[in-house]
């Protein structure tokens, strides 16, 4: 079958529709504008709903409403807009509602820059809002993978009744690559599926309210314990990572998304120079592939190079949890939307090797 040549943001939107998503609410922000633009055109064609909210907060709350009524729903934004959606994302998690949130990251805190960067690793993996909840975070490194992971994110969100996040940078969003689209899934037919945490009313009524406000400490504690147990099952069942030329690697680059593509090219060139480099590419950022790091042969691997499109790097703590102090962890990156090239990574690793030799 001939492949389609699609732009990342549009591919993500189409993948959501193929996964059965029939409700999208969003608010414009670069570099993700093609997602709502595409949804505005496409949703009416498939009997779905597109809404541009009056704000980011309103859009994520609309997604909450749609999810509470049993619809597969999605919203997308970029860093600053995701911050505004934080309340809604926390509420979705608290109410145990499935939804997919796409963050096409910007370059830095505040409004940042609109060029490609990976500024939101910590925000996405540690706390997308208040209350101590977690979301599944998937990070594509090609347009094809952006499609596959968006499609998968809906399945995971429903399976765990929890928001799932697709975390990508502006390059994945704006670049075009040949892709194959997955098969269309039937959208959820029920007007109301019974998703979500119920309101606890001690006096007992037949009013059914989906809420994150449980009022009773005992009941909240039970729910919190359930969340904790669920996150442990994610760590067991949902970790995704790619191991690239790790078999004999003495130098291991850890990189995700676009940074991992640059690393792949750098590894080719380093290998030609006789440097045994390889890569571990986390695909799920939460749950993080700690075990793949633990499995590294400590007698062979001389160091790890954490490579990210953000400074200071954000993934280093997670890498160190995986390798402890047994392997030194260095870092390399560009930020603010400055391009990270394969040569940057190659130079960084060659410098480290030179220092080692002294």
């Amino acid at each position, binding site marked *: 079958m001939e492949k389609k*040549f699609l732009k990342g943001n549009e591919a993500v939107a189409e993948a959501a529709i193929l996964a059965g998503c029939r409700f999208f609410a969003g608010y414009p922000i670069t570099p993700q504008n093609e997602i709502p633009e595409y949804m505005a055109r496409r949703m009416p064609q498939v009997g779905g709903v597109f809404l541009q909210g009056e704000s980011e907060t309103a859009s994520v709350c609309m997604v909450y409403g749609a999810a509470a009524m049993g619809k597969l729903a999605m919203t997308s934004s970029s860093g600053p807009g995701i911050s505004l959606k934080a309340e809604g994302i926390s509420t979705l998690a608290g109410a145990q509602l499935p939804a997919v949130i796409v963050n096409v990251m910007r370059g830095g805190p505040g409004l940042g820059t609109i*060029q490609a960067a990976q500024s939101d690793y910590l925000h996405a993996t540690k706390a997308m809002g208040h209350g101590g909840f977690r979301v599944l975070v998937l990070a594509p490194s090609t347009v094809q993978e952006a499609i596959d992971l968006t499609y998968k994110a809906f399945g995971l969100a429903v399976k765990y009744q929890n928001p799932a996040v697709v975390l990508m940078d502006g390059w994945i969003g*704006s670049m075009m690559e040949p892709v194959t689209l997955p098969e269309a899934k039937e959208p959820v037919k029920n007007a109301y599926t019974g998703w979500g945490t119920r309101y606890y009313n001690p006096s007992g009524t037949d009013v059914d309210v989906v809420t994150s406000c449980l009022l009773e400490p005992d009941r909240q504690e039970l729910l919190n314990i359930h969340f904790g147990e669920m996150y442990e099952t994610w760590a067991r069942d949902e970790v995704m990572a790619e191991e690239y030329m790790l078999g004999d690697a003495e130098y291991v680059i850890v990189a995700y998304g676009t940074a991992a593509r*640059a690393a*792949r*090219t750098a590894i*080719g060139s380093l290998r030609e120079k006789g440097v045994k480099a390889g890569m571990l590419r986390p695909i799920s950022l939460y749950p993080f592939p700690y075990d793949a790091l633990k499995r590294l042969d400590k007698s062979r691997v001389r160091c790890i190079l954490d490579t990210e499109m953000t400074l200071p790097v954000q993934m280093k703590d997670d890498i160190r949890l995986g390798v402890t102090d047994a392997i030194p962890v260095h870092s390399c990156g560009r930020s603010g939307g400055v391009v990270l090239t*394969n040569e940057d990574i190659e130079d960084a690793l060659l410098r480290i090797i030179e220092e080692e030799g002294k």
Partner: protein
Amino acid sequence: MEKKITIAGFGGQGVMAIGQMLGYASCKAGGNALFLPKYGPEQRGGTANCTVTLADVEIGAPESRYVDTLIALNQPSLERFLGAVRPGGLVLLNSSLCRWTGGREDVKLAEIPADDIAREIGSPKVANIVVIGAYIGLSGVLTERQMLDAIEEKLGKRPELLEMNRLALKRGMESATPRT
């Protein structure tokens, strides 16, 4: 095979269209391609640029420090990106709007009066197709047939339009002779 090409010019010269068409054609011909448009404040009235990677292997880095080819459609683009061409690489410049002023002895140079040729054909709009013709003629990465298939599909099959595009592509291919 993997070729990286930076295409740069004024907004409105069809910079993105050239990049996309090369990508479409490579994809349609069963090859790999990555089209990366650059958006930034420079969009407003200044230069527009994109990088395309054409390959028959998996594509890694979307952007590297050096490219194999620079297609410069105007003077500021030539000046800005000349340093990014790898030694031995190709500089293809639109001599209707852009003059070679030297500065690199280690690259191949091809000058093509794309806008003049387009006017001779009868539409200034096909200047970017002339440029595509010149590029595939010089690089050999795609055939005339493969390029025409993509042009037909993306730019329409209206006979008069198609004929003009066909002619523009052919003239581009014929006009491109590198000088070193």
